[in-house]
């Protein structure tokens, strides 16, 4: 027996446990057919081929998979995609800016060399953009505290803080 509720739809084959889920990603409605176990992270990368969002630890510890749901940053590795069917607006790094029209935070990361290998960078930038809307104090220490959910194994932290502070100034924040 599968009571799939109003936001997901079971497929017709009773042995097929896949669900049909409609996600709103970067302003587009995406209909996907997925196993209930699929996380939002795996759905973004493997089904929708939005590979800008990275898989680091896959356990909510490193922040590489950070995306926005209704403007709030979350770890997409700990979110089941099916939960977000018919739900909130999901924004990934691909929805933030384009190569010809970077988000100010993306530009600040470039200008401050706020990365080395780049693997954590999309998660760092997604967190940094969300931080602009959060009650984060003005100091570098405040930024470090708010960014503690994003780990950088190259240790680019000083330039990440610098980039975020530059973007905050450019955007007229604190």
């Amino acid at each position, binding site marked *: *027996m*599968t*009571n*799939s*509720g*109003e*936001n*997901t739809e079971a497929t017709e084959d009773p042995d097929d*446990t896949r*669900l049909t889920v409609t996600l709103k990603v970067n302003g587009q409605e995406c209909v996907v057919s997925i*196993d*209930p*176990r699929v*996380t939002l992270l795996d759905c973004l990368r493997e089904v929708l081929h939005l590979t800008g969002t990275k898989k680091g630890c*896959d*356990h*909510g510890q490193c*922040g590489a998979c*950070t995306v926005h749901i209704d403007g*709030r*940053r*979350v*770890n997409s590795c*700990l*979110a*089941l995609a*099916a*939960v977000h069917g018919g739900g909130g607006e999901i924004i990934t790094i691909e929805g933030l800016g384009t190569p010809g029209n970077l988000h100010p935070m993306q530009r600040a990361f470039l200008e401050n060399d706020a990365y080395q290998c780049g693997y954590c960078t999309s998660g760092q930038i997604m*967190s940094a953009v*969300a*931080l602009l809307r*959060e*009650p984060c104090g003005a100091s570098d220490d405040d930024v*470090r*505290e*708010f960014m*503690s*959910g*994003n780990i950088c194994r190259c240790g680019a932290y000083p330039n990440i803080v610098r980039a975020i502070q530059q973007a905050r100034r450019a955007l007229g924040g604190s």
Partner: protein
Amino acid sequence: MRVFDFVQVSDAPAAIAAGAASPTAQQGASVRFLAGGTTLVDLMKLNVEYPDRVVDISRLGLDGVATLANGDLSVGATARNSDLAHHPQVRERYAALSQAILAGASTQLRNAATTAGNLLQRTRCMYFRDTASACNKRRPGSGCPAITGTNRMLAILGTSDACIAAHPSDMAVAMMAYDAVVHVQGTSGARQIPLSDLYVPPGNRPNIETVLTPGDLVTHVTLPAPLAGERSAYLKLRDRASYEFALVSAAVAVTLADDKIASARFALGGVGTRPWRVRDAERTLAGQAPSDTVFRAAADICLQGARPQSQNGFKVELAKRCIVHAFKQVTR
């Protein structure tokens, strides 16, 4: 991760009926409620949790935070930890709760994690999380490698010969100090469980962690109105400055009258198998002028019966100093 049946429910009775089909609400439950997912999905990936059915309760409208007519604060079971921590009423009236939540996890996790999920989160003991290890909590009767192994982060209070797992929550420590009450709806109606009665000692059955039974749905938590003029704070001591579980933490709340302590309440995190509160220790403070000496005496009582393991004996002294320091912050 094992295959499961994904169910979305739109009202509490449907959730309760779904949950009641599980033979247990404890370790090994075949039905689990899913809200933020920050504990459950993590543990399902580790095969520590392996429900046959996952019931999405995130759309039940249990996410409100409001002050009730009697002055209590009502906190919905699926209110996000971030929303609770930043709620103006919480920041103003329950400072230790706001501080405790913000001292835990990361912004991303707090944006997803919920009230009930936080209370019911599982221990971070590495043997519990590693299915290749024995663990009496995960596999009853298999043994406790932590007692002879890596136990620096684990509990010194409330432990048994079967389990020394520490309760990892910060939020629950503050709620314990504020005399929180957990409101549950189950197959036989609604009931209220003082938070101090929610968790059961590990004893020889550490797989049983709470008094919850199949079908029980936490709907909300209430916090009585703080006492007039009460000041509170949460102090967390840890290995990293951010994004780390507590070695020791303390939520303290105090009222003063004529420069003497009129009332005091406090609870500890990081040291107990559950958030740790000793009312006898609090009573010694009433009527005393605030000083290191009286706070230290209360701390000594609170830590009575501590059973340090091979690597965490430092927690006894650290906990006492944490209590003293936190009380000094709110009585200056």
